[in-house]
């Protein structure tokens, strides 16, 4: 099983980003759990270059959501600029 996230839906397709290298894969929406939404993380099984099974990974979704919220808050506060060397 590999981690994947639903980046978006385009018509009848879902576009998944798979693994740490964000490999893109189109899958039919029908292959995803019915309740799957954009931004949800999944555990996917890939066989012969095709996604053969998908399971929602709510825990991963929650973890990523929290981590991203922290990163976004840091950017919004400008904290990432504070380590800039003076020039």
């Amino acid at each position, binding site marked *: 099983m590999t981690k994947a996230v639903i980046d978006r839906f385009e018509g009848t*397709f879902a576009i998944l980003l798979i693994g740490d290298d*964000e490999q*893109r894969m189109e899958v039919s929406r029908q292959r995803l759990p019915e309740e799957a939404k954009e*931004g*949800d993380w999944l555990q996917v099984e890939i066989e012969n270059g095709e996604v053969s099974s998908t399971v929602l990974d709510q825990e991963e979704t929650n973890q990523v959501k929290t981590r*991203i919220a922290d990163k976004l808050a840091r*950017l919004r506060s400008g904290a*990432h*600029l504070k380590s800039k060397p003076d020039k």
Partner: protein
Amino acid sequence: MNKRQRKYFGLTCAQTAALFVLSCLACLVVTGGIGFVGYLSLPPVTASIISTSLPTEILPQSPASTLVPTTTLLTSPTSTLAPTATLLPSPTAFLLTTPSLSPSQPQSNNSLRFYFIDVGQGDSTLIQTPNGENILIDGGEKNTGAIQYLQSLGVQRIDLMIATHPHSDHIGGLVQVLNAMPVARVVTNGEAHTSSAYESFLDAIANAQADYVEVKRGDVIQMNGLNISVLNPSNNTYPDLNENSVVLQFTYGKTIFLLMGDAGADVESAFLVSGVPLKADILKVGHHGSTSGSTPAFLNAVHPAIALYSAGIGNSYNHPSPQTITAFSNIGSVIYGTDKNGTIILTVGMDGYQIAAQKDAALAPPVLIPTSAPASSSGLESISVTNPVSQGANATLIARTTPGASCSITVYYKSGASKASGLEPHTADSNGSVSWTWKVSNNTTPGNWRIVVNCNNVIKEIPFTVQ
């Protein structure tokens, strides 16, 4: 080449047109493709953002950015931006002095240039200002060539990076740009995603130590005289990430641009209800030309002379949709797409614009738009024509004039005035648009010929080339 191009906008229509044709042909011959590499230089600049946010919410910071050796940076943490309730209120608020990046070459012309970069199924647009600032709107998917294209143009820094929304076909390639060159400021719609591509984007912004700003309807992004109005997102965001895309509207000289991101029918409808002026000369079509947008009422309001979309060849999503193409054809827009035309370059002067594409396509051959006439209430505002046109192919000329004007056309070849069918006199429609389509005979002598258009006795002549 530069001298010649610099003069474009001070010349007559015929001169301008002739020079453009010659220049383009020369460029294509010399480079075997798009021939404008290195055309714009990159001088030192100061950009600023005027926001309509409440002055009381200005929170001055003093992070002396490495990109801003001397300027004091006043910035507003984006979470406190207070967008106004109505569309486009007069910008009265505060001034953000933005990073002025290290000096490079002096200014060499006064045109604004768009590169609608072919990144396959995705979106990426580079705008180079007359002062040499680089504005990058979206970057396509990861590893789809945006960074390589920028580097091939000699771009060494991005003064303003705008992510219209956080889908990977828009932000994926921005990560590589952030990793490869200085980026002064990143603007987003502030909407979070949970995707790996979005997290990589946030990490890259932090690592690049770029200024981070979120915009909303009513904000105006100012780049040395270029005032870019933000029309979307509004306070009321939609559940669909596409519909919260940053939508931008601005004017350079007499040319109005509207860039839709992936916004669709919901946003179009909100614009129409709000009464915001939507008429534009150049429309970056929403969501890759899909059926999610480009509704007839919206197209009628925008009525663009040129409609450009970005889409990948053979994509699985029916982008652009045939209905969208037909809808634009029906209102007389000339359509360009990165799937058919490759990278599309639009050069805008104070009086008009020129467009050149990497690849010809039957759908949208290179078109020349001569400079506009003075803003008078009558006469011919603009003329666009298929150019060059091949023997045996159809040519189309579209003129903008006053609604109901009586117009005639004469096409002069070596043998004299053409008697082709389709060149009969027409009356301009209620939008002041009139067009003719005719076949250039297989027997027509190739060369540089001319077309004379007469609307209510205002006469304009433009050159065109048969090949």
